[in-house]
């Protein structure tokens, strides 16, 4: 980011009527190892956490949010070290405390919820045991009492069937449920300070809303000081009392939530807020053009288990879905997690074989082609994958990744590679990058490589499955812009799968809402978001955090 340095905007903290801070982080600098992209992960940052208040830390990926939080827990990675500063928990400086004193602090006085609900729990231990461990670590209660307390906590965080959850392994719970277990664990000893590091980023809107509510409630009830890390301004608007904005390891703006959100002063803050996708239909409604793709009664059933001696279990992921896609049109598919969005997308490109139904691409039925015929049709419909890390072969050079498709269809490798460079340029990357490996690019850049790859075969249709969900707002905005431009220039049709309704609203001509494998509503974006007909659509829209406040921003 080549921006002129601006002076940070630190608003004076109002003192009256507010309790004294329980944690004060003062002039904290954390040095990165040699060869990192900058010398300090965080540089002279200050935070104050007060009982009963919630501080939101926002900022782009890599700006040092997690580092600050980890430093407070005393859990910095081995490769970095604290260069200067103090972290005061009441009167003790945690940075100078001997290691075994910290054991008593962690979990008991300061607790943390981590970013990844999927991996933050020990996969081999039952949930209850993992919660009981917190008491055990601090030598509290008898084993029997611990068990009861764990159950009580699970009830408190609103898990549907607490006894069953207590007796489950983490893999038997959904993402949202796991995140709630983490919260239960963090709250077990009623800590003074709670740190939540992007606790909802990976979750769909409905689950997200539940968890936000839960944290807010507990915070108020127990008078905790909370540090909440996120890059989602909707979330900030919903829950923050106080906001700190970070960029490249520095605090660029901080102050009470209302002031920062509604009258941002630092250009970076402004930019972030401007980049928030708005929940309103973007593109003007197109006059219906001839459909390039017609999907008729698409059904996908997964058969699980099943062997000689095992009963088979069916998952009806997609049930009788029909729709058309016009030339140059963008169709959004939204719906909560597990509603069958990805399954539809994967059936369209035949990464999965549909159980029944037809996918007509012109007069060819994608659903029933085989071998060379399938290959021939396939180049007309391409896909952009969700995860920019795992969708690029780490051992192939970027140019070759882009050129692989054309080469597979018999193009001369030299020409294909030079075209790859052109495509790089088209998606806004330095064409000299063709000789680098994927890991040498940032997440946003990688997603562009994915787009370039999809474009290399000059398809008529592109299916984008959560193509921007993993990116932070500013980069997300860039990629969405790019897609919009390309679509116009190349007259592409786009199927855009997402669980973020605001993103769908912004770029889709028409939106299809799915629930439990069925289409509940399909129609122009404005109609869907403006006047949802179906109750389910309405509930999805209601779950979007900070809807009204966000609207007031910008």
């Amino acid at each position, binding site marked *: 980011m080549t921006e002129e340095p601006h002076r940070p905007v630190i608003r004076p903290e109002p003192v009256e009527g507010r309790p004294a801070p329980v944690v004060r982080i003062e002039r904290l600098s954390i040095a990165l190892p040699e060869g990192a992209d900058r010398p300090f992960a965080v540089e002279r940052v200050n935070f104050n956490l007060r009982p009963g208040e919630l501080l939101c830390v926002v900022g782009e990926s890599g700006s040092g949010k997690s580092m600050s939080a980890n430093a407070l827990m005393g859990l910095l990675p081995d490769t970095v070290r604290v260069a200067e500063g103090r972290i005061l928990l009441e009167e003790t400086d945690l940075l100078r405390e001997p290691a075994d004193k910290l054991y008593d602090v962690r979990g008991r006085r300061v607790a943390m919820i981590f970013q990844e609900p999927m991996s933050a729990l*020990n996969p081999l231990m039952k949930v209850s045991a993992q919660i009981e461990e917190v008491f055990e670590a601090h030598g509290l209660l008898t084993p029997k009492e611990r068990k009861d307390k764990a159950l009580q906590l699970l009830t408190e965080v609103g898990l549907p069937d607490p006894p069953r959850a207590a007796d489950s392994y983490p893999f038997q719970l959904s993402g949202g449920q796991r995140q709630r277990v983490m919260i239960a664990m963090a709250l077990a000893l009623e800590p003074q300070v709670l740190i939540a590091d992007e606790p909802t980023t990976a979750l769909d809107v409905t689950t997200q809303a539940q968890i936000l509510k839960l944290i807010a409630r507990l915070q108020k009830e127990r008078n905790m000081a909370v540090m909440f890390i996120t890059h989602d301004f909707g979330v900030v608007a919903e829950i923050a009392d106080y906001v700190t904005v970070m960029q490249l390891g520095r605090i660029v703006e901080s102050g009470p939530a209302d002031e920062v959100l509604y009258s941002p002063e630092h250009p970076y803050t402004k930019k972030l807020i401007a980049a928030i996708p708005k929940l309103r239909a973007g593109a003007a409604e197109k006059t219906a053009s001839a459909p390039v793709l017609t999907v008729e009664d698409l059904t996908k059933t997964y058969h699980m288990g099943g062997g000689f001696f095992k009963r088979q279990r069916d998952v009806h992921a997609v049930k009788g879905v029909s729709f058309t896609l016009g030339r140059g049109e963008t169709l959004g598919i939204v719906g909560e997690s597990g509603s069958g969005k990805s399954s539809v997308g994967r059936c369209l490109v035949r990464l999965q074989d549909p159980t029944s139904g037809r996918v007509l691409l012109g007069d060819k039925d994608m659903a029933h082609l085989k071998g060379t015929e399938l290959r021939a049709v396939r180049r007309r419909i391409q896909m952009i994958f969700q995860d920019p890390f795992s969708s690029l072969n780490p051992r192939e050079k970027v140019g070759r990744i882009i050129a692989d498709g054309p080469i597979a269809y018999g193009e001369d490798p030299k020409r294909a590679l030079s075209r790859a460079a052109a495509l790089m340029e088209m998606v806004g990357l330095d064409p000299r990058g063709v000789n680098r490996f994927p890991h040498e690019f940032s997440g946003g850049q990688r997603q562009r490589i994915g787009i370039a790859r999809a474009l290399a075969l000059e398809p008529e249709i592109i299916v984008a499955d959560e193509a921007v969900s993993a990116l932070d707002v500013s980069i997300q905005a860039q990629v969405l812009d790019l897609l919009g431009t390309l679509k116009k220039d190349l007259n592409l049709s786009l199927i855009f799968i997402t669980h973020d309704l605001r993103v769908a609203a912004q770029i889709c001509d028409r939106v299809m809402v799915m629930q439990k494998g069925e289409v509940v509503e399909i129609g122009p974006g404005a109609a869907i978001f403006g006047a949802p007909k179906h109750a389910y659509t309405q509930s999805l829209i209601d779950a979007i955090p900070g809807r009204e406040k966000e609207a007031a921003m910008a």
Partner: protein
Amino acid sequence: MARFIAGRLLKAIVILICITILNFFLIHAAPGDPAAVMAGEAGETDAVFLQQLRERFGLDQPLYMQLFIYLKSVVQLDLGYSYRQQFPVLDLIADRLPATLLLSLSAFVISLGLGILAGAVASARQGRWSDTLISMVALIFYATPLFWLALMAVLLFSVQLGWLPGFGYETVGAGYTGIARALDILSHLVLPALTLGLFFMAVYVRMTRASMLEVNTMDFVKTAKAKGLRPGVIQRRHVLRNALLPVVTLAGLQAGQLVGGAVLIETVFAWPGIGRLMFEALSQRDYNLLLGVFVISAAMVLLFNLITDVLYRVVDPRIRVTS
């Protein structure tokens, strides 16, 4: 679970029969036959003698008939008669099995126990001298020829120091019973079990260490730290258990070799086990005996594959046992 096991057992039997047939042809492909070997040993042969032997062993029949006869008896759980030892194969094997199992199981336990322990210590003290020492020693055990190590052990502990017996299964003719006999066998067991165990121990050390280091970087370890758990508890309860899966895989492979994997050690230490029986049967072309050992060993391998899979499920509840 019971169904799963039953299914696997059924499949295993089919595989076992295929393996037996393949082994049959494999063994018969080697030059020489038991009659020639026995005639050779007798130091005196004539055509009548050879013919007698071949008839006695059924070697005058066409190969497919021999196979048929053999399979028929195997299906009836009879492994036939050893040509050379004039004894039912099953009895011969049963005779040696306890010694072999004792040796390889103790080696197995030693290697697994010490290996995991040392690996865990090394990973906990990564980069420090104790880690370097453990890793180096493990590598040396890994790279030293087994029989060489065995000889050195005998020289040191048996000849020089006189602490432990250097060969055999028990003190012959001492007439020990009860505890005294158990202790006697134990003292004979120490050297061979240790030498046999060292190689695998080295492998387990390396595997456990690498695996634990990897698990250490996982998020849930951070969660455990955030709870305020002490490092020892974290390593034991959270890291080790999650790091164990690849070790279990390997242990399954080692366990499969329990019956016949110790030819060299059994030879050097005069341990009356199956490995030696097999090697002797091979060099004497004692077809039935050799096949018998192979069948038993294959059965063990299949059995341990099954046990490993079941164990997987115990260690890691995520794994659903299918196919």
